[in-house]
């Protein structure tokens, strides 16, 4: 029975979260890249959510990437930043088969955890490119 369930379920667990990718001033920027525009570092931040998964599928504590990303906004703004860069994410994953087994062993919830960390930044306005005033045309006095 277990073998049949195992064969019938995928061996890959997939989780994803959509990240806001704002480039306009004032809006949050969350990216796994480094920032190429001017910025001021505001520190480092790690957000972790932990909890049990009940009956194999009930994530009552919200230990998924999407919930964690949604909670980043207030944490970033509370520290005077408007972005989190060089972000690393990690989430506990279980295959469908493992989750089905957990239904049978309902008295032992699956431990689950999601962690997001990165560097807090405040983007600075790009330095104005110095433009030299146009050279006044030379007056030529006299002539040949």
């Amino acid at each position, binding site marked *: 029975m277990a073998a049949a369930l195992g064969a019938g379920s995928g061996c890959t667990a997939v989780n994803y979260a959509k990240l806001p990718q704002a480039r306009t001033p004032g809006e949050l920027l969350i990216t796994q890249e480094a920032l190429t525009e001017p910025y001021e570092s505001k520190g*480092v931040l*790690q957000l*972790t959510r*932990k909890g*049990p998964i009940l009956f194999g599928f009930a994530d009552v*504590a919200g230990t998924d990437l999407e919930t964690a990303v949604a909670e980043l906004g207030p944490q970033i703004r509370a520290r005077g930043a408007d972005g989190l860069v*060089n972000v690393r994410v990690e989430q506990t994953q279980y295959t469908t088969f493992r989750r089905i087994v957990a239904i049978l062993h309902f008295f032992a*919830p699956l431990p689950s955890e999601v962690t997001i960390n*990165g560097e807090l930044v405040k983007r600075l306005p790009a330095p104005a490119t110095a433009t030299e005033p146009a050279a006044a045309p030379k007056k030529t006095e006299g002539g040949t």
Partner: protein
Amino acid sequence: MNLARSFILTALGLASMGCNAVVAGGALSSPPPQGNALYLSTGGSPKKYRTLGFIQVRGYGVQMAGFADAGNANLDATIRGTLAEEAVKLGGHGVINIEFLDENPQTDAERINDAMKTAQNLANGKAKIETKDRYVTVTGEVIEFKE
């Protein structure tokens, strides 16, 4: 029946607990590098550089009764403390591509649980304080600026 009831109560209790643990550390460096100050960044280098080596630091600490922290298991002590000190010893001008992980941050619910257990122990005449081992791991690339 009792088992089912206690299971449901536990589940509801877990669901209602705060599950968040947020840890933060002080500011790193903002580009461009300023004077002789060690340049610390989770990103790359703003100037040409030469790699001197790599460093990994693991800060260890103990959390007592849920709220008192002892040791170096925090982001500032590891990144701006030990990591920076070791980079200077290597002759580095900076550490780039810093990665960090607080391996077992404690949620408010876990802290309160430890505090309550400690209080219960003391009330029962046991001199036992609940403790949790804490670890923070940091890695980085030590560099020397060429210019």
